[in-house]
Structures are given as structure tokens and as C-alpha cells.
């Protein structure tokens, strides 16, 4: 498990802590109480989106029923309360990522918008014809397409570092692909399709030796392991609220102030300006320069509540617990005849991707669904990864802090059912 920034003291604290109370945690998630097709819901599509604890739902409800007002512009009390709560969300995200300053935290719609903002704004300033952007063969479409669009616009070149059959980045090849034309290295922290944890510390060291900034797509990482952007020394980091038990439509782009200060605005509008005339506009300071228009206020507040929730359970404990679950379900799924695991990296987090000889992933998905088990079937917005393995798609079970060993058993039983129906 790639836990970043954990010393032996933290590990000792984990061992000394009371047993992981997964029953109690499940009580916090109203959606998990239901049955589907008469069977208890087994939710294993957490990499797509996670369920929300009551505290998040209440924080959003509280904003709309008590404090609803616009932020950063009202002299009245409700606007003050809304602004305070929203900005507290930013401060929580700052602490969560270990960022030096809250002005390095930009609210966005999600990881996708974060990468579009970065590619567009950084690209406009720093990328020219003949330059290169380096990504990996493990990326989600959202960490491919915005860079591809930038490269097309600028006449720049998108380079792709290859992976091995286990789904691990080939570091030698990666290093060879960095050169004096490389303007950005953009890499997923954890792969959404395979669960591979990339050696991000090493990647950053290699890139920085050549003075190339590094962006990490943390969408699949932050729910599963502790991240500290200062210890990592990454230049940019992004994640989505909804995969971290928070609401949809809100996410974070972290950027070192020294970069953000140099970058032009992404969108124009209210809140991102200091003064406007028809001749010229003075832009606001960071992070507001990148936050045009009324933001997702309840989203920012909900994200703050989600971060509180994860901190309350403890990321180190979540990581240790999920790691054990993943090892268990991997071992058991492997024992089902005809099941092949796609992605067997040494370092993995949260994801088990499989194919079966008797069934297409879509059929696996339908049969499991009728057993009450929600998984994702398909290419997981990572078609190049599927091409790399010569498959159309996989059936993916992805874990969260509320999943249980019994649910892993139900999943494996579901795979046996697939054999029964289609074998």
C-alpha cells in the first residue's frame, strides 16, 4: 500500500487503535440500508462514485435550509455564514493535502475540470510548438484528452510512457521519454482501471531533475491513501469530491503558488476580477482568479464535511483495512475457474479488474446486478489501457471504507453464478 508520509509512529498508532468498526461505519451511510431485487445492496462501484455519509448530506441540507446566500459578495449575515463555511471547505482541503497555503487550493467541478483548467491555462503560458507533454499508458481519458487538445492547438507532442503486463509503469522508459522539450509530466497517482499505485515520489524526483513540473491525478488515490503534496513535492494535484464520500460537482486543483501566480485565468466572469472596464480587466489574486462565477457552494461545504468524515475514521486505518479486503477478494476471485485478473501490480489500491472466459464483462455486470451487487463493466474511460491488454473491457469491483468481507464473499459467489448461467 502506498501510504505517503506515514512514519513508524503513525503505524504504531494504527496498531494501538481499537478494531475497525465497519458495522458502525455502515450505519453512517443511509443508502447502504436498502435491498435491490430483494437482496442486500453490495456496492462495489466506488471508483465510479462513492456513497455519502449522513454528515455530508446534513451539511448540504444545512446550507440550503439555513445559510443559503451567495459567497464573497454579501454584506448580510447569511452571505457571511455561507462564505465562512465555503472557505472552511477550502481550508480543510488544504490540510487534507498538506498544502502550504489555502490560496493554492482551487475549487473546480471535479478532476476532469481540474485537468482542463491546468492544460488550458498552463498550456497557454508555457507550451509552444515542438514542446512535449508526457503521460502514461495507464491514464483515464480525462488525463489524456485535455493534453491531446492542447497539443493539437499548439503543435506540441503527446508522449506516452508504456506499462508492463502487470500494469506497472516502465520507469526506465519513462525516464528516457523526458527531455529538454518536456513541459509537463501528467500521471495518475492510482489507476482507475487497474488499481496500480504509481511510484509518484520517484516520478517527481526524475522530472524535477530535469526541471519539469509534475501533475498528479489523485481521483482514485485520495480515498485510499494519505497524500501530502509538500512531502511529495508535486507541482499540481487534483481530486474529485464525489469519490471521497462528498457530493458530485466539486473537486480540487492544488497548484504550487509559484506556478499559479504565473498562469492566466481559465474562465472569465464574476469573482475572478479586481476591476473591469471595457478597455481592460484587472484579475483577482489566486485562487479566485481561477474561480469565475458563483461556485458550487453547497459542494464546497459538503466536501469539507466529507474530509472531516475521512479524517475521523483515519486514512491510515482505511488504507490498512481496504488493503486486506483487496488481498482477500483477489485471492478468492483468482480461485474461480476461468477468472483472469487484469492488473497485478505489486502496489495496488482499491480496484479489482477481471475478465472471465465464459462471459463478457457486460454480462458479468448484469448477472451480479441481479444478485444485488453493483460493479462497473466496460472500458472504465481508459480505452488505451484496454487496448494494451487486448481486451474490450473488464468487470471491476472497487472498494470503499464501508465494504465488508461478507460482501467480498458475495462478489465471488456472484462470479460462480456467472459460470452457472453462461458456463
Amino acid at each position, binding site marked *: 500500500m502506498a501510504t505517503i508520509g506515514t512514519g513508524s509512529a503513525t503505524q504504531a498508532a494504527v496498531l494501538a487503535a481499537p478494531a475497525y468498526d465497519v458495522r458502525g461505519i455502515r450505519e453512517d451511510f443511509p443508502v447502504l440500508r436498502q435491498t435491490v*431485487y430483494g437482496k442486500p445492496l453490495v456496492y462495489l462501484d466506488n471508483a465510479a462514485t462513492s456513497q455519502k455519509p449522513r454528515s455530508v448530506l446534513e451539511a448540504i441540507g444545512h446550507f440550503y435550509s439555513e445559510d443559503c446566500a451567495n459567497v464573497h459578495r454579501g454584506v448580510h449575515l447569511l452571505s457571511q455564514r455561507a462564505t465562512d463555511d465555503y472557505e472552511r471547505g477550502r481550508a480543510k482541503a488544504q490540510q487534507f493535502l498538506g498544502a502550504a497555503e489555502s490560496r493554492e487550493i482551487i475549487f473546480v467541478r471535479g478532476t476532469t475540470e481540474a485537468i482542463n483548467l491546468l492544460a488550458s491555462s498552463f498550456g497557454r503560458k508555457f507550451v509552444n510548438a515542438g514542446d512535449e507533454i508526457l503521460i502514461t499508458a495507464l491514464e483515464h481519458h480525462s488525463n489524456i484528452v485535455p493534453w491531446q487538445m492542447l497539443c493539437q492547438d499548439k503543435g506540441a507532442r503527446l508522449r506516452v510512457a508504456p506499462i508492463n503486463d502487470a500494469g506497472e509503469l516502465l520507469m526506465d522508459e519513462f525516464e528516457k521519454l523526458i527531455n529538454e522539450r518536456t513541459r509537463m509530466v501528467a500521471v495518475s497517482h492510482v489507476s482507475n482501471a487497474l488499481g496500480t499505485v504509481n511510484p509518484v515520489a520517484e516520478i517527481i524526483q526524475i522530472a524535477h531533475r530535469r526541471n519539469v513540473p509534475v501533475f498528479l491525478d489523485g481521483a482514485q488515490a485520495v480515498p485510499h491513501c494519505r497524500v501530502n503534496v509538500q512531502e511529495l513535492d508535486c507541482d499540481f494535484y487534483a481530486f474529485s469530491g464525489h469519490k471521497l464520500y462528498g457530493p458530485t460537482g466539486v473537486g480540487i486543483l492544488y497548484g504550487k503558488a509559484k506556478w499559479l501566480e504565473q498562469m492566466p485565468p481559465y474562465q472569465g466572469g464574476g469573482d475572478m476580477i479586481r476591476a473591469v472596464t471595457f478597455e481592460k480587466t484587472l484579475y483577482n489574486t489566486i485562487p479566485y482568479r481561477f474561480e469565475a462565477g458563483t461556485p458550487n457552494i453547497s459542494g464546497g461545504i459538503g466536501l469539507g464535511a466529507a474530509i472531516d468524515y475521512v479524517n475521523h475514521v483515519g486514512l491510515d486505518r482505511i488504507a490498512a483495512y481496504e488493503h486486506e479486503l483487496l488481498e482477500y477478494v483477489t485471492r478468492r476471485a483468482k480461485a474461480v475457474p476461468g477468472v483472469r485478473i487484469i492488473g497485478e501490480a505489486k502496489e495496488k489500491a482499491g480496484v479489482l479488474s477481471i475478465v472471465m472466459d465464459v*462471459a*463478457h*464483462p*457486460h*454480462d458479468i455486470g*448484469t*448477472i451480479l446486478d*441481479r444478485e444485488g451487487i453493483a460493479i462497473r*463493466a*466496460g*472500458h472504465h474511460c481508459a*480505452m488505451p489501457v*484496454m487496448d494494451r491488454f487486448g481486451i*474490450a*473491457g473488464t468487470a471491476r469491483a472497487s472498494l470503499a471504507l464501508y465494504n465488508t468481507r461478507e460482501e467480498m464473499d458475495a462478489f465471488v459467489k456472484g462470479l460462480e*453464478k456467472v459460470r*452457472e*448461467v*453462461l458456463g
Partner: protein
Amino acid sequence: MSDLGELYQELIVDHSKHPRNFGKLQPADHQATGYNPLCGDKVSVYLKLDNGLVSEVRFEGVGCAISTASASLMTERIKGKSLAEAEALFQNFHELVTVGHPEPAAMEQLGKLKVFAGVKDYPVRVKCATLAWHTFRAALRGEEPDISID
């Protein structure tokens, strides 16, 4: 497996494992390739026409049990039919898998294709069942298949 059995009928499982008329048709008078972006399914349909009748039809591609079986059974059913008859079959088939219970005469027309009646209870699988048909229609019209309307 009562309700799953409604979907994965024996005939469907058989055609998914042993698709009929599978492979390229060269040369073909018409051909098109359809994709289901949701799951990555891909099917190519090849046609030969003779005097307004479908004289030869084959398909190839990768897909789930439902899409493969649907393509296989479609080729069996439309071979030898006129273009108007094939279009009418598609309409009836579409009704069968989306709203269910076509008119008795239409049901009669569908023949073996009736086996897809269970799809109606699996709305997310409708596109799997209709992909080959949309691709067939696109091949005739020389267009890109459009499955966004299901």
C-alpha cells in the same frame, strides 16, 4: 435463476457461444461498423443484395452475449428477406425489446427473435440487443450507426 433465465435463454447463450454467419463478407455491397461506447461493444455488418433481397449477410465483432446473439439471430432472420421486410422486422424487434408485446402478427413475424423478449426488463441492455440492427440499417443507408436513440 428465474429472472436471469428470462434474459439468458438457452438459444441466446447458444448463439453467443456459436455465432452463425460470423466473419467478413468480401466483397460486400454494403457494410458498416457500430460501436456501443458504454461497454466497448463493436459489430461490423456486411450485406449483399440481389433484386432488392438480402441475399447474403454476415457479421463480426466483439460483444457481450446479448449483442453477439442478437447479431447472429438477426443474420439468420433477414437473409432472403426484402429490404422492406427487414425494416419491418427491426421495428417489431425494437418494440419487443423496449416496450414489449408487439401485435400477434408482428410477434409471428419475429420468429426466433422472440427469444429477446426478456431484454425489456433490462433497460441498460437494450442497446446491446439493437446494436446489430442499427448497424444493418446504417450499412444500407451508408451512414454511421446511431444507437443514441434507444
